[in-house]
């Protein structure tokens, strides 16, 4: 990933594009996420049928008019799938952003302030790490009426811990850097040090964590919805799977009601994992050599041109 800089937007964009070209994994990941983001934004304009509109028989099979068939109430699956994109992506991105904000704040505070604040924050983090995540989410989701906002908060509640730990470690290292020590020595304020000397150096890590967290958030959205804890007034991929599971899609042979939403989740998770890992590698490059490999160097004749 190109380091953040004050260059103009066009230049930054160009560097990103170059980077993407050189990292096929990042390119695929970015393309997947972008495609689904576009679908989430403009999907409602594209849905061929209304999601309350019964257009055919129960579990009608795929046909040219309905390429993904119909659901258990005769609604067009493709339209439902597109409608579900919006909620799933919204929950995925919002939850990961909230969690990274919280985790980043806790991590920076713990790492920078240190002392008992650090200890207290890390013990709390420890608790959230060892507590069974999905069961806790279920408890909170059950007690709290289901809604998209609640879903986002519940997922973020358990997602911030790994960010907090990662950022804290990074901040601890950054704190000892010469530039930070110098800034402190000349009496720069804490806010200034954090904002000018620490935050810029963890931006890459934060971006990578956010992108990676999207996959976890999408997973949890699907899990909670599958357990019937999603907002009933909305359609999401997780809920589509739940509905198919509860309404005998399998014994009706309606694979088209089950496969597409799961595939969409898998693609988004894949996209965010690929892109996030690539950004992580770029922010923290490793040589990536292997001293042992099944392959070995090649022997070739000396080309005439290189004889000089």
């Amino acid at each position: 990933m190109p380091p953040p800089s004050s260059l103009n937007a066009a230049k930054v964009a160009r560097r990103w594009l170059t980077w993407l070209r050189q990292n096929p994994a990042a390119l695929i990941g970015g393309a997947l996420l972008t495609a689904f983001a576009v679908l989430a934004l403009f999907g409602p304009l594209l849905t061929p049928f209304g999601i309350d509109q019964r257009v055919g028989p129960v579990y009608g099979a795929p046909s040219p008019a309905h390429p993904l068939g119909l659901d258990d109430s005769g609604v067009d699956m493709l339209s439902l799938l597109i409608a579900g994109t919006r909620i799933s992506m919204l929950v995925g991105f919002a939850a990961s952003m909230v969690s990274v904000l919280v985790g980043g704040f806790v991590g920076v505070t713990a790492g920078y302030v240190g002392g008992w604040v650090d200890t207290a924050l890390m013990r709390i983090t420890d608790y959230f790490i060892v507590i069974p995540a999905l069961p806790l989410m279920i408890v909170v989701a059950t007690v709290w009426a289901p809604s998209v906002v609640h879903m986002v908060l519940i997922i973020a509640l358990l997602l911030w811990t790994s960010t907090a730990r990662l950022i804290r470690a990074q901040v601890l290292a950054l704190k000892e850097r010469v530039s930070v020590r110098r800034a402190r020595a000349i009496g720069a304020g804490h806010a200034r040090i954090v904002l000018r000397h620490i935050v810029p150096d963890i931006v890459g890590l934060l971006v990578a964590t956010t992108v990676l967290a999207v996959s976890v958030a999408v997973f949890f959205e699907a899990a909670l919805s599958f357990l019937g804890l999603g907002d009933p007034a909305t359609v999401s991929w997780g809920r589509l799977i739940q509905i198919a599971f509860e309404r005998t899609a399998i014994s009706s042979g309606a694979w088209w009601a089950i496969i597409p939403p799961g595939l969409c989740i898998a693609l988004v998770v894949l996209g965010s994992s690929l892109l996030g890992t690539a950004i992580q590698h770029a922010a923290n490059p490793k040589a990536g050599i292997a001293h042992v490999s099944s392959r070995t160097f090649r022997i070739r004749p000396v080309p005439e041109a290189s004889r000089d």
Partner: protein
Amino acid sequence: MTESSPLLEASDLNVWFDLPDGGELHALRGVDLRVGSREKLGIVGESGCGKSTLLMTLMGLLPPSASASGSIRISGQEVLTGGERAFRIHRWKDIAVVFQGAMNALNPVMRIGRQITEVLELHDVATGPAAEARARDLVTLVGLPDDILRRYNHELSGGMRQRVSLAMALACEPQVLLADEPTTALDVMVAAQVLGVIDRLTRELDLALVLVTHDLPLVTRTCDRIQVMYAGKVVETGTPADVYHRSEHPYTRLLFAATADVHSGREELVSIAGSPPRLDEPVTGCAFLPRCPMAREECMTEAPQLLQVASGHAAACRFAGQKVRMS
């Protein structure tokens, strides 16, 4: 020293590395090398000149992204074309290596003793208690107490690690010892001690030594012959006296001049203006041209060949043997 049967001989070695963007980097460009028995060869040059690549090529340890051509003979047997299998026969038995001090050349989760005995067992030198006894002898030889055998890498100091590496390298009584900047990352005192041990043991054990370093005073002190490398090529070769006092290549002269300025062989050579050429593009003419104080029109088109200026002394400069003054 018998010129007729070199222990290690390489001729016209070329090595390329594939680059991610599809291009290649021509890292070694027709290197020749001969090491006779008990001979000490020093290889010097700036970082990136190909000296470490040369050493890896001699051991057959190039990565899969590399390709090589030419010939390497160990004890008269061709190994380069024989690939991994051919190299493996000779590794450690005939030719052993001590890696850079900065590297983690020792396995962190294996006791030092085991790392020595495993190689004894592998090459059928000794097994069981005999191997352990031999390992004790080896560490004593390099001046370490034998309880070091029960330790792990992280418990050792840098100097101790290099001594262990040396003991390990000597385990199977190789004829040729390769040493790749064995004292980088060590402080001056320790470096001197380690070099002292290497020097002493190569003499005591009748070893041939290939010492890769940018420590010019060191090579002139210890080696019988020096090869100066620049941009993947040997640009000058000769005895220390030839190379130091009668250098025929402007690069060699600048190199010694820079060393004299710095007064320390450990610092990177930075005082030659400019930087080496990029090797991912074809080099036409003399590679040193852009930095050369003696550059002439004709240097741009024709790559200079190694010109014999005296017995055992050659330089790859069109002006070698001519008394041309540096301007």
